[in-house]
């Protein structure tokens, strides 16, 4: 069907081209950044483009962390109405590229030197078959702890360096009558935390083999069992009402001091910022204990579609602007993430941001930059979701032991491959 669609589109676009020889100075952009801070961040891009004379046709579809937007995208692609670009995650970009609906940015990429500035791990998802198909916007990192400093001071805690330190810290909080760990009991949050737990328990090599290469030996290893046991341990520090809670409510618990710590991606910083909290004085950002030196990332990308020729100029302008240093800096300061290229100055970033950028650079160079399985950068969506199922069922007790969890994980991933 896609092929037919393509021919149809080509026909349509050909006709359109004949009719309007002039370029269409407009970018059509599908995304799910609809909340105040995110929209403000994206607005920077819109204005950059406006300066160059490109209009911005906004197609925002929020909900389900991009689920609704991806459904809309699928419908748009099925209809043959490709947007200029769409916010996309990891393997989805590759799926669309394989279907042959993505454009080719290689020319722009070569001119801008993306090959050198964008971390190789990201290029795995933005380059398909030797062609640039997407422009990465940012790099989020998920192995973070977000800690309320006042609570930390009250219980006399220090930065935990190992998993056992972390447990000891949580015990202290528990003794002090604070909820130790703020967690939102939705499968992606649980799995995101488990990404960190696995990295911490098994180390970088293990994480890569298990969650990026999906090596069955590692998936059913004792280390994986230990990871599940560690997860089970963590879950005992969670308040009873955690199930179904939105992540931002969990963050709010830390901000208000009801809870000590949340394990969450760096987008949580946006919440602290919005609550007018400063890193270092109001809250602390540490790497998840035992994961220092490694970065488990996910990244928002702007997938570029195979638009008619008269829209290609606008698309190139969008791509260039997206990866421009000024936008990368401005956007990521607001968003809480770090730039998708490693050569952006960190002057505008706060302490956590600076640390994040340094970590990313180090991990990129040291080969410890790993895709987050929970966030769709470790394996295709079918596998990632099967993984989230198993973790969530383990957390909520449908799966009762770590042995069973490992068996389930192996079979679920096998099933979904």
């Amino acid at each position, binding site marked *: 069907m896609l092929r037919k669609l393509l021919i149809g589109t080509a026909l349509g676009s050909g006709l359109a081209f004949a009719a309007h020889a002039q370029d269409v100075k407009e970018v059509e952009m599908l995304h799910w950044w609809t909340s105040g801070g995110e929209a403000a961040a994206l607005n920077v891009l819109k204005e950059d483009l406006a300066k160059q004379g490109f209009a911005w046709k906004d197609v925002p579809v929020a909900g389900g962390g991009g689920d609704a937007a991806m459904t809309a995208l699928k419908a748009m692609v099925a209809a043959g109405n490709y947007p200029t670009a769409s916010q996309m995650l990891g393997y989805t970009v590759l799926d669309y590229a394989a279907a042959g609906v993505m454009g080719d940015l290689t020319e722009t990429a070569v001119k801008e030197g993306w090959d050198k500035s964008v971390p190789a791990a990201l290029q795995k998802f933005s380059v398909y078959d030797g062609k640039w198909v997407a422009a990465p916007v940012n790099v989020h990192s998920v192995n973070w702890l977000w800690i309320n400093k006042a609570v930390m001071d009250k219980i006399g805690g220090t930065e935990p360096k190992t998993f056992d330190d972390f447990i000891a810290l949580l015990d202290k909080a528990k003794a002090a009558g604070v909820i130790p760990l703020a967690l939102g009991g939705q499968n992606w949050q649980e799995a995101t935390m488990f990404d960190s737990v696995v990295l911490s328990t098994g180390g970088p090599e293990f994480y890569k083999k298990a969650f990026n290469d999906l090596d069955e030996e590692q998936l059913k290893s004792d280390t994986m069992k230990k990871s599940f046991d560690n997860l089970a341990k963590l879950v005992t520090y969670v308040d009873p009402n955690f199930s*179904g809670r939105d992540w931002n409510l969990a963050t709010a618990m830390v901000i208000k001091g009801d809870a000590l710590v949340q394990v969450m991606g760096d987008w949580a910083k946006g919440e602290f910022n919005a609550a007018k909290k400063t890193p270092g004085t109001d809250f602390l950002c540490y790497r998840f204990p035992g994961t220092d030196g490694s970065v488990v990332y996910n990244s928002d990308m702007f997938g570029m579609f195979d638009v008619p020729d008269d829209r290609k100029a606008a698309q190139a302008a969008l791509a260039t602007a997206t990866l421009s240093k000024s936008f990368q800096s401005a956007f990521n300061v607001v968003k809480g993430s770090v730039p998708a290229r490693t050569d952006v100055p960190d002057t505008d970033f706060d302490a956590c941001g600076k640390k994040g950028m340094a970590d990313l650079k180090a991990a990129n160079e040291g080969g410890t930059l790993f895709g987050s399985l929970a966030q769709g950068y470790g394996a295709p969506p079918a596998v990632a979701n099967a993984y989230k199922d198993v973790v969530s069922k383990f957390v909520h007790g449908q799966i009762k032991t770590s042995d069973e969890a490992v068996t389930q994980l192996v079979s679920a991933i096998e099933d979904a491959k």
Partner: protein
Amino acid sequence: MTTVATQIKLTPEHNARPGASVRSRLQDALPKIVLAPSFAITIVFVYGFILWTVYLSFTNSKTFPSYAITGSRAYQRLWRWTFESDPPSSWYTSITNMGIFGFLYIFICLALGLFLAILLDQKIRGEGVLRPIYLYPMALSFIVTGVAWKWFLDPGLGLEQTLHQWGWTSFHFDWIKNKDFVIYTVVIAGVWQASGFIMAMFLAGLRGIDGEIMKAAQIDGATTFQLYRRIVIPLLRPVFLSAFIVLAHLAIKSYDLVVALTSGGPGGSAWLPSNFMYEYTFKRNEMAVGSASAVIMLMTITAIIVPYLYSELRERPR
């Protein structure tokens, strides 16, 4: 009368013309011509798409449809998942939830709707105020009311916390957090949304019953309870059936209810088949499995609805 007559005779229709037969044949076919577009649309956009879905379920379509038949792997997987109860597979959870939800939702909506309609039918002052209050939930999108319900049912934010603040500290209501009970909160919210509409249907049915039958039954010495049980409720049979159709259709399409209220529930324990279908088709890029689950849903609906339609449409021969 003669004046009228001449005018009528003047009209041209009475002259037999050669083209008349074609025209009259067109006249005869007109009703079918009028119905045809609707019917054609239904055939293409409903039954055509159903066939398409059936076809896809036998391919290995992933992110996008692919058209090479690869066999019944999707069904084999669903079949296997049907029996994975410990730990429950998502499919097992979905279908058992559909059973629980479908039964309770339909049953409670019918019971509550009938009950409220009977109460409202007792010559109530302020019926004009109460009726829209019962009815309005149907007017709101669950994208919106889902959030309100989620808060209300959350033990840390809603009812439980409020009652604790008011001093009833032993009160405990955490179904929405409990994997074994979360589906019942979906029932509560679903009933809240639809029962008012069902009430309106029953109220209309009650108002349509001949008052003399009621009087006769009262003279026969029936108590109010007997009156309703023996006379009124049997007379409402057609309403029950219509309400059943409406509710069955709502139950099967309940998707946003689960998402907005529970985000799928702890460990996916609140999933319904429609969630399963959406997840697999759009989120997990397993379109073949999603299509197969849609086919099974449709087959189940067929098994339930078609006998009903058959009996209903056969009953009135002309």
